[in-house]
C-alpha cells in the first residue's frame, strides 16, 4: 500500500491541485456565472508565490502561499465590479480576455524571464499541504450549503432578477464568489509552482481554464464536492488507460484530449448533473424495477 502510494505521489498531488482549480471554477458557477478568468488568477498566484520564495528566501512557505491566494483575490475586485454586470456568454468572453491579458503580461515581463518563466523554484509543496488546502476549500464551500448565503447564491443562479427583487444583494454575492474563486485558483497556482519547480506563461493559456471547467462539469456542479470528483476522475483516467491507448497506436497527448472531449460531451448530453448524480440515478432505477 505504501509502495503504491509513493509510486503515485505525483499523481495524487495533481489530483489535489486540479481539484482546487475545479472548485475555483465552481465557486462562480454555483451562482450561475460562467467566469473563465481562473487561468489568469492561477498565473498571478503562481508567479507571486514563486517570486517571494526565490527573491525573499527567508519568508516561510505558508506566507508565500497566503500571498498566492491574496494577490489574485485583490485583483478580482476591480475586475469583477465592471465585468459582473455582464451576463452569460458576455461574462465568459470578457473573462477569457482577462486571462489572456494576464498571460501576455507575463510573456512580455522581463523580470520573470518572459516566455521562459521562472525555474529552479524550491520544492516546498508536500502532499499533505495540498490535501490540507483542498480540505479547507471543501469545508468553506460545504458550509455555504444550507446557509443564508448558500440560499442567496442558489436564488441568483435560478433567476437573478427575481433574487434582486427579493432583496438579495446580487452584486455583492457574485463578487464575493469571484474573489473566492480567484483565491482558490491562486492558491493552486502557488502549490503547483512549488511542486513542479517552475512557472511559465505557457501553462496558463486558454486550454488550462477549459480543463478546469471540464473537470467541474464532468464531476457535477450541483454538489460542492462534484468538481473534486471530476478532477480526480479526469486526472487518473488517462493514466489508467494509457496502456490501452498505446495499444491502439494513439499518442498520450491526443488520447488524453480525446478522452476529455468525449467524456465532457457524454456528460453534458446524458448526465447534466455530472458523475456525482450517478448513485441517485441508479437508486431511482433500482426502485423503479422493484
Amino acid at each position, binding site marked *: 500500500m505504501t509502495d503504491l502510494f509513493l509510486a503515485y505521489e505525483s499523481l495524487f498531488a495533481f489530483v489535489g491541485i486540479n481539484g482546487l482549480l475545479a472548485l475555483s471554477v465552481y465557486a462562480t458557477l454555483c451562482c450561475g456565472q460562467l467566469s473563465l478568468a481562473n487561468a489568469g488568477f492561477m498565473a498571478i498566484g503562481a508567479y507571486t508565490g514563486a517570486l517571494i520564495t526565490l527573491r525573499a528566501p527567508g519568508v516561510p512557505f505558508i506566507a508565500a502561499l497566503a500571498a498566492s491566494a491574496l494577490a489574485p483575490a485583490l485583483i478580482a475586485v476591480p475586475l469583477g465590479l465592471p465585468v459582473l454586470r455582464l451576463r452569460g456568454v458576455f461574462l465568459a468572453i470578457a473573462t477569457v480576455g482577462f486571462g*489572456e491579458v494576464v498571460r501576455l503580461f507575463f510573456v512580455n515581463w522581463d523580470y520573470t524571464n518572459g516566455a521562459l518563466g521562472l525555474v529552479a523554484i524550491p520544492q516546498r509543496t508536500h502532499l499533505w499541504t495540498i490535501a490540507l488546502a483542498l480540505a479547507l476549500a471543501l469545508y468553506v464551500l460545504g458550509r455555504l450549503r444550507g446557509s443564508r448565503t448558500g440560499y442567496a447564491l442558489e436564488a441568483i443562479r435560478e433567476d437573478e432578477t427575481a433574487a434582486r427583487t427579493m432583496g438579495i444583494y446580487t452584486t455583492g454575492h457574485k463578487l464575493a464568489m469571484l474573489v473566492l474563486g480567484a483565491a482558490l485558483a491562486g492558491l493552486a497556482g502557488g502549490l503547483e509552482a512549488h511542486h513542479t519547480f517552475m512557472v511559465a506563461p505557457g501553462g496558463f493559456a486558454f486550454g488550462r481554464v477549459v480543463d478546469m471547467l471540464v473537470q467541474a462539469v464532468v464531476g457535477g456542479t450541483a454538489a460542492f464536492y462534484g468538481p473534486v470528483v471530476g478532477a480526480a476522475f479526469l486526472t487518473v483516467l488517462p493514466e489508467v488507460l494509457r496502456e490501452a491507448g498505446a495499444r491502439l497506436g494513439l499518442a498520450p497527448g491526443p488520447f488524453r484530449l480525446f478522452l476529455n472531449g468525449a467524456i465532457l460531451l457524454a456528460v453534458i448530453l446524458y448526465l447534466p448533473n455530472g458523475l456525482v448524480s450517478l448513485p441517485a440515478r441508479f437508486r431511482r432505477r433500482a426502485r423503479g424495477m422493484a
Partner: protein
Amino acid sequence: MGQQALNGVFVGSIYALFAVGYTLVFGVLDILNLAHAAVFTLAAFIALALVDAHLPLWLALPLAVAAAGLIGIVLERLAFRPLRGRADSNISGLISSLAMATVFEAIALQIFGPDISRFPQGTFPDRMIRIGGASASLLQLCIVGTSVVLMAVLTLLLARTRLGRQIRAVAESPRAARILGVNVDRAIAMAFFLSSALGGAAGVLFGLAFNSISPDVGRSVELKGLAVIILGGMGSVPGAVVAGFALGLIEVFTVAHLGSSFRDAVSFAVLFLVLIARPRGLFGRAAAREA
C-alpha cells in the same frame, strides 16, 4: 502608411471571414460555438492533405471548404441539437461545443502531429504586385479577393434567398418560424453548414498566407474572432465584416507604433473596452433583458 494599411486589410479580411461564421451561429442560436476555431484548423489540414495528394489548389480549396461545412453539420447534430429546449442551453451549448473542439483538436493532433506542417513549395505562384506606393503579393490579393467574394455571397444569400429568409426568421424567433412553416432544424443545420464552411475557408486562407499549420493554429484566431464579434455586435454579419477589417488595421498600426509585443494585447483591450462601454457593439441590437 499605405503599406501598413494594405497589410491591415489583408489580415483583417481573414479575421472578418472567420468572424462572420462565428457571429452567424450566435445570431441564430444565441450560442457561442467554441468549436468554430477547431473547424478552421481542420479545414486547413484537409486542404493541405489534398494538395499533398497532388490535387490542384483551385480544386483543393472548395473541397476543403465543403468538408468544413459538413463538419459543421456533424457538430450541430452531435453537440447542439440534443440540447435544444433545455433551460440552460446557452451555457451547456458553450460547454458541449468546447467538448467537440477538444475532440477535433485531438483528431488533428493524432493525424498530423504536433509540429508545424507546410504547403509544398510552389503551391501558389510567388509574385509581387505594386499598388501605388505599397507592394503586396499576388497571394495576399487573392486572399482578400476570395474573402470579400465569400462574404458578399453570404450577405446576398441571407438577404435574398428563401434559405436566408428562413435562417433570419429562426434567428428572430424559432417558435414563430415554426408556426409559419419553416423547418427549424433544417434551417439551423444549414446555418451551421454556412458558418463552418466560411470558418473553414478562413482556415485554408490563413494556412496559405502564413504557410504554417499546427493543431493549435485556431487558438489565436479564436480569441481574436471573439474580439471581432463583440466589436461588431453579437449576431450581426455586417458588424463582423467591419469589425474584422478594423481589428486587422488596429493590429497592424499597433505593431508599427508600439511594437510587436502589443499585437495580441490590443485585441483584448478592444474586447474589454467594448464589453464595458457598449456591450452591444457597433451594429448589435440593444440587448433584450433576460427575464
